[in-house]
């Protein structure tokens, strides 16, 4: 960024040129550093990797032919689709809810704050499995949902079972649960944004909503995105809980195949490979999103991919250049 004018001549003052007592030393001639330990470690890792690959390939228990055979059968694809669909919808619900709850948690309103805290306490505490079972079988508890005068006559009512389809139950169960976790993540992110930002926005006459969405949230995103990535990966796998309400995701699909064929290991491998493929794609996607929200956060906009992964926060007050 800074370029020192190349025409600056080295007009050194004389008295510092008086030779020192020792012979002239120049570290430019230093022996290049050797890292014997690093080479040993690399070798060890290489051998271990070779052994692992050797085992993966040669061990008959993996039955790679079976893995290949099932890898993109239609039923696996359908399970994968359910997994992806549920992950996307439940995460969307969770993120929206999480932002709302986080804002409530930080609100000055006593009621909102307590309700949000209660929600988070409850939904983090109750296992998602139980929540799914509850939502799906709510009609066992409440055969119909009605709007009316409390403890009095009803005006409108619906059959609970008609109202709550399996998909809706899955979205409610996973999404409401996720909302509680996301709320804590978003709250952390919001708190990490300097209060001066809010004040600057207010001083410009921005409304609270605008301040949140244009000023605070975009800056909080840098701290929200990485843990949200973990949550997405978690959700990807948590969707397998929906098998309890007769939906079949990727993991459950392979389980039901090996329930029939008893080929446990290769079919679990099918699921693992798919999960690894999806998480790899997510990983790349996440680093792009992180890069987007990191814009303006460093003096030098990162260019290399590796830099994106290693953002360090710099003190706010920038250094300054004066042309010489």
């Amino acid at each position: 960024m800074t370029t020192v004018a190349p025409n600056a001549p080295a007009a050194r003052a004389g008295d510092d040129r008086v030779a020192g007592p020792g012979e002239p030393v120049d570290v430019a001639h230093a022996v290049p550093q050797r890292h014997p330990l690093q080479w040993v470690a690399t070798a060890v890792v290489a051998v271990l990797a070779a052994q692992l690959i050797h085992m993966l390939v040669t061990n008959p228990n993996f039955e790679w032919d079976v893995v290949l055979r099932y890898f993109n059968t239609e039923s696996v694809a359908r399970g994968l689709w359910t997994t992806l669909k549920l992950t996307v919808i439940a995460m969307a619900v969770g993120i929206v809810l999480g932002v709302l709850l986080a804002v409530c948690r930080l609100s000055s309103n006593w009621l909102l704050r307590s309700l949000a805290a209660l929600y988070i306490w409850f939904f983090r505490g109750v296992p998602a499995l139980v929540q799914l079972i509850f939502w799906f079988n709510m009609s066992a508890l409440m055969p119909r949902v009605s709007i009316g005068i409390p403890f009095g006559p009803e005006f409108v009512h619906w059959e609970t079972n008609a109202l709550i389809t399996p998909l809706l139950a899955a979205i409610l169960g996973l999404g409401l649960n996720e909302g509680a976790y996301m709320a804590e993540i978003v709250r952390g992110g919001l708190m990490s944004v300097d209060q001066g930002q809010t004040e600057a926005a207010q001083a410009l006459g921005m409304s609270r909503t605008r301040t949140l969405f244009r000023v605070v949230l975009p800056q909080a995103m840098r701290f929200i995105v990485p843990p949200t990535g973990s949550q997405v990966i978690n959700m990807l796998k948590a969707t397998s809980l929906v098998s309890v309400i007769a939906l079949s995701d990727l993991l459950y699909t392979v389980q039901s195949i090996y329930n029939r064929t008893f080929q446990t290991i290769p079919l679990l491998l099918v699921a693992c490979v798919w999960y690894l493929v999806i998480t790899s794609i997510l990983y790349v996607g996440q680093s792009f999103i992180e890069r987007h929200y990191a814009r303006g956060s460093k003096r030098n906009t990162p260019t290399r991919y590796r830099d994106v992964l290693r953002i360090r926060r710099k003190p706010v007050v920038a250094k300054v250049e004066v042309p010489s």
Partner: protein
Amino acid sequence: MTTVGQPLVSARGVRKQFGPLQVLKGVDLDVHPGEVVVILGPSGSGKSTFLRCVNHLERIDAGSITVDGELVGYEQRGGRIHRLPERRIARTRRQIGMVFQHFNLFPHLTVLGNVIEAPVGVLREPKAEVVERARALLDKVGLADKADSYPRQLSGGQQQRVAIARALAMRPKLMLFDEPTSALDPELVGEVLGTMRDLAADGLTMVVVTHEISFAREVADRVVFMDGGTIVESGTPAEVLDRPANPRTRAFLARFLPAGQSAA
């Protein structure tokens, strides 16, 4: 330049308390249109708090502040005083520009984005028009070529000038500056003071909290000395800086003079 007529800012008996701590103990101050008022005072005397009360970043406990004849943060209705809702307060704030000590630029927006954000998003002015005005303002503060940089890529002095342009883009009637140069390296102070000098020359009404005595002497119409939550002394720069009546003012000013030089 102390104008007679309706003052732009009128503070009367402003009090503000943080928990047990009485920070403002009845501040009275009038600022007339076109006037430049510099507030001096030791740390903790309530200078920042007072400025923040003027645009209602802090709610005052007693007294009143009006800007352009309108009560800030409150409304008289049916003979009684009611708090304004957040939305109405935001409307008042749009008339008042504020420049903070730590700049508080939006780091995720470019320089141009910072300047146009509020006019486009809050005043809902057409974007093309605002961009044109923003470029003119950036030109005025000497940063025309930095429009597409991000704040962190600028020096402190440049950032502070962007903050000034951002506030000016709202065409405020009044500008508040809270120690706009004290987070800057000594080398960069000059840039920002220069910009402020130009604004004063343009006739903008300004209230400036600063420690730059020479700036106060040169630019201020009036210098106000605050201490312990009240205004202790007020008058022309010559009166307050060179012939301070109050012993505390004198003690304070002594710190800012080169050693060996007396306060005359």
